[in-house]
């Protein structure tokens, strides 16, 4: 069949234009695909831009409790400490917590202390900052297998507990983190029940190493590190050191704790750092110190055995993990 309506030569694209258009299209596809791939990658890669907005906290020297770091251990940078956080209420992505916790409201704040005590009371922010603050540089060992060295500012929890006068029936202390889904919208992906709860035996809570931290690097805590006040128990895995505390309750029995509720086979009540008791899914014998490429052997009780081992005398630590 003969074509009855041939394309008039005026409508045929000249070869030069055709090639130009082709070149243009190819360039656009190159640029578009490169931007899309790089952008997609970038949206998942870490963006550790950390602001230091804390205000200075005065501390007193503490000659009796010098830190016990080995000669080759360095204090981690503020960027590492404030840019890599497990705070599931904000995000399960450790590099994303800082940005998501940026607008978290920590003032006004109050910590209700009650339960089996003589004098239940609440502490507001000013009350907490009235305690004589000290600087304690502790190792911090996460159950996931990484660790840091952090210069905390705070005061021994025992001082606060002394003020409320625990009753003789009290054997344990329960802690609770602030929880507000409006301020923590991503908490619905956390996969754990909230509010976050933790607990210690009373003798652990009264131990001089156990700190209520209000700051680090000489300034008030960044939100992502548990502002305005958090627990620090240096010989236990990091998740025991509960953040942004709003409730402290003295009890006569072991309180429930978030991670052992979520997975009792993997996380126990004690959760002492112990290189000889492995997590069911990974070894705890070594740890990756943030800022270093190699791995370090994990120390018994995170290097604080001399101070705390007596608390667990006679206990089977592989059963009470």
């Amino acid at each position, binding site marked *: 069949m003969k074509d009855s309506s041939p394309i008039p030569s005026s409508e045929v694209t000249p070869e030069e234009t055709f090639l130009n258009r082709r070149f243009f299209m190819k360039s656009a*596809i190159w640029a578009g695909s490169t931007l899309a791939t790089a952008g997609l990658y970038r949206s998942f890669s870490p963006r550790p831009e950390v602001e230091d907005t804390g205000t200075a906290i005065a501390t007193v020297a503490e000659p009796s409790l010098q830190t016990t770091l080995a000669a080759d251990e360095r204090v981690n940078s503020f960027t590492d400490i404030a840019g890599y956080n497990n705070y599931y209420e904000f995000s399960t992505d*450790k590099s994303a917590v800082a940005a998501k916790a940026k607008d978290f409201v920590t003032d006004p704040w109050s910590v209700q202390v009650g339960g089996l005590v003589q004098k239940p009371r609440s502490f507001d922010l000013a009350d907490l900052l009235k305690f004589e603050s000290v600087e304690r540089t502790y190792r911090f060992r996460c159950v996931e297998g990484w660790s840091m060295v952090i210069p905390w500012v705070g005061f021994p929890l025992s001082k606060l507990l002394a003020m409320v006068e625990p009753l003789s029936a009290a054997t344990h202390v329960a802690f609770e983190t602030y929880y507000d889904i409006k301020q923590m919208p991503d908490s619905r992906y956390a996969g754990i029940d909230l509010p976050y709860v933790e607990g210690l035996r009373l003798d652990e809570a009264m131990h001089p190493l156990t700190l209520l931290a209000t700051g680090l690097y000489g300034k008030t805590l960044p939100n992502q590190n548990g502002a305005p006040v958090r627990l620090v128990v240096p010989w236990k895995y990091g998740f025991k050191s509960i953040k942004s505390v709003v409730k402290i309750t003295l009890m006569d029995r072991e309180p429930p704790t978030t991670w052992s509720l979520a997975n009792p086979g993997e996380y126990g009540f004690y959760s002492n750092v112990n290189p000889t008791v492995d997590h069911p899914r990974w070894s705890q014998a070594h740890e990756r110190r943030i800022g270093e490429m190699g791995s370090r052997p994990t120390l018994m009780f995170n290097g604080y055995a001399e101070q705390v081992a007596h608390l667990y005398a006679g206990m089977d630590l592989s059963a009470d993990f």
Partner: protein
Amino acid sequence: MNFSADTRFHRQLFLFNGLLPAVLILIDGWRGKLGANPVEYVTRATGVLTLVFLILTLLVTPLRKIYGWNWLLKQRRLLGLYAFFYGVAHLLTYLAYDRDWQLQTVVGDVYKRPFIALGMFSFLLMVPLAVTSTNAMIKKLGGPRWAQLHRLTYYTAIGGVLHYWAIVKSDVTYPFFFAVIVTLLLGWRVVMSIKKARGAAPRAL
């Protein structure tokens, strides 16, 4: 102008974009911008990229059948090899940083940790596929046998998603996302094969 016929252009485009994440990881690493825990980041990123390229590989057939994008078939081998490439990188970070090159401990680790076993199983399934990806091997095996062998990709994808699911502590959002996609891609194949079997069977009426 017909872009769907420009195989050379597709090849360059896929080659470049597949390599781009690896290049960005290397550049970020060089600049010390991989975050506080670079080892954990690289391990996770290469693992996720392996799954991404496995999924892209599995996406080729549905896209051809549904949209007629047959030109994609010529790029499938490259996508599969990228899955293998990122899988090798993932395995190397594990061997270097998790095992400190103590290769004799790998067997014990596989035995002890089910998620390591799942990952190793999925990786090992990719090895024969990478080896038989050359034209010569396709010819040697013959089309149907080659296609049969390369269905191992399905098990690699399933094993890879389970491996990811088994390592997260509590937030399964990402593993769930990958599980949904792999289920859809494999489910589509099941539905198609059932339809085909019905179509081939003699009609009852």
